[in-house]
């Protein structure tokens, strides 16, 4: 008698998987480890145990996620990382951090639930659990449209695109420096991996979704930078820049959806290149914003400034940086996506987004310099980790082209490509100078913008519902004293009357019987 239950034992199945997952895993590992070193180095010894309680599970989840082989283990690692990072966000315990953690948690839980729904439906439609074939299964299923909506919503929340941009700065600002770097570097990338695993990249028929993804990408790119310019603290700016960079990944994936056959491979390469570039550059920047210029001699501060500028340049996509390689890969993906209006718009808007990123980076660098060295200098080990990370980010620029996209290799030194990468940076510098002359100072804005208002509204709603419910089901404190309806039968139905009724009843019964005969 066989059973329908074939849940794999302790259903956590992991495998090294193909090159893409290996690259993702390697990058994530590097970031989590180096950021970890920095975090533990810079944390007071007493609180290290508590930090470990949150940091290590997050790291484990983050890395395991990359290596997941089936839907269950992917979801398990995804949840483990997401929930334990909540602890990191609420790290310094004050009300602001707790509020940020609440917002982060609420959004993560929603995105996780959406992902679960996607995985369940996909698993429901396919007999096996394995991830690889999953997307082909659900793409052909009747619920494909529904799954697409759910998946998109989940990814938008996770990667902080469009209106959810605020989720990333909230994390970077409140988490301790090292942890923030790790979150910046690795946790957002889980979303990208989910895209690669789950989105129907090779499957025809999702062209309209492709266009939508490109649109989302572009809008979050520009919205992210706009909000970044309004942010106050350097790390918030970095958060918003991550949001906008994620937008670019959306654009690449959009391209793959629009022309699955032609743009499939280049888009994949673009996403991988982008992931590696952004992970290393952004985590270096975050560490830098905390470590650089802290109480060092003039020369030291200058050196820090340079070290900080390098990843910043990479982000802008300056030539000979990992950013440049990613941008090239993206351009090649867009080119191979074939003639469609949205793709043309994307190709033309790309450089402008680089300009915007440039503006943001410059503002960030100025902000870092302005924020005097509040903390004491991080220990040498911490600084070493920072240096290593920046080095890696630079190295990526070199290793990138050979391993990923052939298009990038050819155009690496092509003068036209080089120029198209440098003018945005120059333009950004020029614009900033002009802004400073006109003393146009952007008004400050509380990080997390839209989400914080949503959070307050949500709390008020729950309190109202609880109040109303409490009022209705307040136990009737005094079970209303059983007001005995004092019914004395003698008054209601006196004996004399009753006997009279009896005699009448006797006659009735007699008559009934007699008549019936």
């Amino acid at each position, binding site marked *: 008698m066989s059973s329908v239950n074939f849940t794999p034992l302790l259903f956590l199945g992991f495998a090294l998987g193909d090159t893409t997952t290996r690259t993702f895993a390697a990058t994530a590992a590097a970031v989590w480890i180096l950021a970890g070193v920095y975090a533990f180095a810079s944390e007071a010894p007493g609180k290290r145990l508590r930090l470990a309680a949150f940091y290590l599970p997050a790291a484990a989840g983050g890395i395991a996620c990359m290596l997941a082989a089936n839907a269950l283990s992917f979801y398990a690692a995804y949840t483990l990382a997401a929930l334990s990072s909540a602890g990191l966000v609420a790290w310094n315990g004050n009300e602001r951090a707790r509020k940020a953690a609440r917002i982060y948690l609420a959004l993560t839980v929603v995105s996780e639930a959406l992902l679960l729904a996607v995985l369940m439906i996909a698993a429901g439609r396919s007999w096996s659990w394995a991830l690889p074939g999953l997307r082909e299964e659900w793409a052909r299923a009747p619920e494909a449209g529904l799954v697409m909506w759910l998946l998109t919503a989940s990814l938008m929340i996770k990667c902080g695109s469009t209106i959810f941009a605020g989720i990333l700065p909230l994390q970077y600002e409140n988490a301790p420096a090292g942890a923030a770097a790790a979150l910046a570097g690795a946790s957002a990338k889980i979303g990208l991996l989910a895209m690669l695993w789950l989105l129907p990249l090779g499957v025809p028929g999702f062209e309209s979704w492709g266009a939508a993804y490109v649109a989302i990408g572009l809008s979050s790119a520009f919205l992210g930078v706009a909000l970044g310019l309004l942010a106050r603290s350097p790390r918030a700016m970095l958060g918003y820049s991550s949001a906008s960079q994620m937008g670019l990944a959306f654009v690449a994936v959009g391209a793959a959806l629009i022309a699955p056959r032609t743009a499939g491979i280049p888009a994949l390469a673009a996403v991988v290149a982008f992931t590696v570039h952004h992970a290393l550059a952004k985590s270096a920047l975050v560490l830098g914003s905390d470590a650089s210029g802290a109480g060092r001699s003039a020369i030291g501060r200058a050196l820090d400034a340079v070290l900080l500028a390098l990843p910043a340049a990479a982000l802008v996509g300056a030539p000979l940086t990992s950013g440049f390689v990613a941008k090239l890969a993206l351009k090649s993906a867009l080119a191979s996506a074939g003639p469609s209006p949205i793709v043309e718009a994307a190709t033309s808007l790309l450089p402008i987004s680089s300009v915007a990123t440039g503006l943001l980076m410059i503002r960030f660098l100025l902000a870092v310099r302005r924020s005097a060295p509040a903390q004491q200098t991080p220990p040498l080990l911490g600084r070493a980790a920072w240096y290593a990370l920046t080095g890696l980010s630079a190295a990526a620029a070199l290793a990138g082209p050979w391993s990923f996209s052939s298009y990038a290799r050819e155009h690496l030194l092509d003068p036209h490509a080089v120029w198209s990468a440098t003018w945005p940076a120059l333009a950004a510098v020029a614009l900033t100078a002009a802004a400073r002359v006109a003393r146009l100072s952007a008004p400050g804005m509380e990080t997390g913008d839209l989400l914080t208002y949503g959070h307050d509204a949500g709390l008020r709603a729950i309190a109202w519902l609880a109040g109303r419910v409490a009022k209705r089901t307040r136990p009737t404190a005094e079970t209303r004293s059983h007001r005995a309806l004092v019914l004395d039968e003698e008054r209601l139905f*006196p004996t004399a*009357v009753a006997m009279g009724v009896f*005699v009448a009843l*006797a*006659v009735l019964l007699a008559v009934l019987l*007699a008549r019936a005969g």
Partner: protein
Amino acid sequence: MNVAVLDVMLCAGLVWCAVSALVKRDLFASIVMFISFGLLSALAWIRLAAPDIALAEAAIGAGATGALLLDAAGVLARGDGSAAEDAERRTPRSANVLGTIAAGALFAALAWALLSTPLDAPRLAAAALTGAREVGIANPVTAVLLDFRGYDTLLEVAVLLLAVMGVMALRSGAPVSVASHAADPLVRLLVGSLAPAVLLAAAYLVWAGTSSPGGAFQSGALLGAGVIVLGLEGMLQPMRVHPGASRLLLAAGLLAFVAAALEPVAAGRALLQYAPYARKGVILAVEGILALSIATTVAGLFLASSVTPDRGKAGRP
């Protein structure tokens, strides 16, 4: 239409006495009317050729019941605040109207039933009469009473004993004790001379019971009534009847009858199936003891209940 004038007169008298017994305002007057109703009904039984019943009616119906009613009326009328009095006035009007209508309907139904069926159906007359002859008891009523439906009579004796027990229970278990009353000499003389006659008549009734109208109940009632009269006149010195003895006497009738009933079962026959040869003897014996018991019961019922606590004479244990 061979209805004699006497019957019509008798029926009219009966109805008139009955109505006035219920309607009369004064309690004593209604009781007197009820006693006269009793006597008239005794006459009616004679007209309907039921001598046994006439005897019983006269002794028990009119005599004992009348005496009890008079005594009760005496006690209750004097009690001014007694709840029963004011309850009288408060019968709700609806009860009167409903009662009257219902009673009327009952009468109509009964009358219709009586008119619509032939009264002269044979019923069990033949079977009973032949049965009585077989069994050799001349008086068919006694045959039915003690043989064919002896079980009914057994239970009926139990009812009597129960009544006495009930009355005793109401006086919280005080034993029945015969107490004397002061009375004027003339009545004492009359009663003195009557007593032996009553005793003789009672004995005769028991003896004659098997062949002619008479029997345990009638003689018992007569004897009882005699004792009551003697008691009322204080002729019976305050004999301290030992409580145990009075109880035994009261229960004797029932115990005898039960013995007579169970004996055949022990002998392998059905319940109350007297042995053919001993039938008359057993019946006579049972009737004798029964008469004594009934006499004590009737006297006890009257004397025990008539002696109310406020007279203070009744011996409370």
